[in-house]
């Protein structure tokens, strides 16, 4: 009793002991707190920027799609104006008729090819092409009229019959078109070799070459089935391969969310005091016992196209998650842990840690994981694309050195038997994919997953759910 008198006096004296710290202390505290807020800002900024970008691309893509559809309708209604050569009245010359026919027929043929049969690379390009052709046609006609008036002898240099034969073909293939013009026009322009005429000639040649390039694949079909309409593809569409497969890797952080039972929960009993045993559990701690730590995964993925711009993907991953806890020295004493809701059924745990600050213990979890997710492209071009993915995964715990926290006694213990080996997760993310070659691509993007399963088998121990987030990247090979 006497011994305690000294401590009592000392404690009383120290209870009222107050000292004023200097003013800069608060300023430093305030600064540190603001720094933390600022550190959070980039994350929210990136998230917001990501959402805005996704929204913009979605809007842009849908708008572009709508415009393309409108243009297709407009394009179908385009009637290529015929030249006025027939109506000019005074042109009776067979050569000019032939020229007109050649050009009209060739342009019409090109337009038809463009209109119905050509696998267009660009919708806008087609419209522009047709308009250019029309202008050229008109220019050429006007030019012909000039030639006709300036030098009627020019007709002697033209092999009308040969050209006529060519133009009489109901369908001209593009090779014929290309061959015909250079033959006609130099002759036609032979007496008037102005730069403009040469330019027109070059333009026509270029345009027809362009038409020819685009239509090469379907030119034969066009001859056989010219009236049959073929569905056009809008815009610069990128045809997704049917299959994609490759490797993925991700790195980020994992943490455990915790829900503790506050009342009527089972308090572990301490058995066999032993060394350092026989302690009374300290007061219940409600502080979160786990901090986030490193997480990574590596694996393989396979994706199957299910819609025009959507895939279903699966794969297999090795996933490593970890969380850290502040603990004190290990107590070599027995602790009982309930195995079920029946408090008479329990595990005996040999050794445990009390929450404290002596050291940081990292609990590691190694899983094999099978994710299944739906992926849809919200923006796609030939080079890059943006997609979101959402799905679920199943994980099986392979190994762990995990500490389980019991809030009722404020202790950590290690017992893999109390861990739920099979875990179900929901996952979501964004991906930016870049085509790095004809048949391959790389992708990168943020991913997040949340475990729906409790990490502990028994809810009396607590309710712990994994959440992990980070960046995922990968390399994919494409197969048509």
């Amino acid at each position, binding site marked *: 009793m006497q011994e305690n008198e000294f401590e009592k006096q*000392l404690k009383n004296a120290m209870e009222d002991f107050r000292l*004023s710290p200097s003013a800069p202390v*608060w300023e430093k*505290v305030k600064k540190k707190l603001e720094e933390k*807020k600022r550190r959070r800002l980039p994350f929210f900024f990136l998230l917001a920027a990501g959402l805005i970008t996704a929204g913009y691309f979605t809007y842009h893509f849908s708008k572009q799609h709508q415009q393309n559809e409108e243009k297709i309708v407009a394009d179908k209604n385009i009637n290529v104006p015929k030249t006025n050569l027939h109506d000019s009245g005074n042109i009776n010359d067979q050569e000019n008729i032939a020229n007109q026919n050649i050009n009209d027929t060739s342009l019409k043929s090109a337009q038809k090819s463009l209109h119905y049969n050509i696998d267009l690379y660009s919708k806008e390009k087609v419209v522009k092409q047709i308009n250019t052709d029309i202008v050229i046609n008109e220019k050429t006609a006007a030019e012909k009229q000039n030639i006709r008036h300036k030098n009627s002898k020019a007709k002697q240099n033209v092999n009308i019959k040969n050209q006529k034969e060519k133009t009489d073909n109901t369908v001209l293939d593009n090779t014929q078109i290309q061959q015909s013009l250079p033959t006609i026009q130099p002759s036609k322009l032979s007496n008037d070799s102005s730069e403009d005429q040469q330019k027109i000639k070059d333009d026509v040649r270029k345009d027809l070459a362009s038409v020819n390039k685009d239509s090469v694949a379907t030119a034969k079909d066009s001859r056989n089935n010219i009236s049959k309409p073929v569905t056009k593809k809008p815009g610069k569409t990128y045809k997704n391969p049917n299959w994609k497969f490759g490797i993925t890797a991700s790195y980020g952080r994992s943490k455990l969310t915790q829900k503790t039972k506050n009342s009527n929960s089972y308090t572990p009993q301490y058995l066999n005091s032993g060394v*350092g045993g026989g302690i009374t559990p300290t007061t219940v701690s409600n502080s979160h016992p786990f901090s986030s730590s490193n997480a990574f995964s590596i694996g393989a993925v396979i994706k199957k196209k299910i819609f025009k711009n959507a895939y279903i993907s699966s794969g297999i991953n090795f996933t490593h998650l970890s969380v850290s806890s502040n603990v*004190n020295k290990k107590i070599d004493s027995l602790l009982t842990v309930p195995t079920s809701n029946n408090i008479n059924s329990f595990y005996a745990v040999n050794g445990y840690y009390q929450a404290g*600050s002596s050291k940081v213990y990292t609990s590691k979890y190694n899983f094999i994981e099978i994710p299944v997710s739906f992926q849809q492209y919200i923006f796609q071009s030939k080079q890059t694309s943006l997609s979101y993915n959402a799905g679920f995964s199943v994980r099986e715990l392979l190994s762990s050195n995990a500490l389980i926290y019991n809030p009722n006694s404020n202790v950590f213990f290690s017992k893999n038997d109390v861990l739920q080996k099979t875990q179900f997760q929901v996952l979501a993310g964004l991906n930016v994919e870049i085509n790095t070659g004809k048949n391959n691509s790389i992708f990168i993007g943020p991913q997040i997953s949340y475990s729906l399963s409790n990490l502990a088998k028994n809810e009396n121990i607590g309710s712990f759910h994994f959440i992990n987030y980070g960046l995922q990247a990968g390399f994919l090979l494409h197969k048509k």
Partner: protein
Amino acid sequence: MDYKELVKNCLKGNSEAQKQLYNQFAPSMFGVCYRYTKSVADAEDVLQEGFIKVFRNLNRFRYEGELNAWIRRIMVNTALNYLKQNKRYSSDLSYEEINLHPVSSENPDINIEAKELADLIRQLPTGCQTIFNLHAVEGYTHVEIGEMLGIHEGTSRSQYARARSIMITWIKCRNEHVKQQRYAGK
């Protein structure tokens, strides 16, 4: 303002509330930090670090106990970490088991100002100072101290006995000195 209201406002990020909470608890917490360290600058470092932890973990405070006790625990833990991490202390922070000192039965009156008493505690060797603070002032048992510091319970007991003995000697000397001064004054 009710402390619950104050905590809620702090959690909302209200800097005025944070300052209010700091002003309310800083003097008593600075006293705690002062006892565990050997200089005012170090005590202020611990106080600063401790309050950052307090504000960052305030969402974990469940209003079940006293806020003062909760903050005090954080300060003590922060001080212990500071001592371990700081070379000036860690080199001197010897918890080696020393020969058991018989616990002195003397209980001199502690008619000393709190500040002076705290200064005496700070004169103890770092290991003894820490254990003396934890046991005599904070009221932790030797088992708990053993777990907190990662030492054996017996080490804590012997270190405390030594610290207590030194403190009693100093207090007695100080009391004698004061008495002599009083007689001299009369």
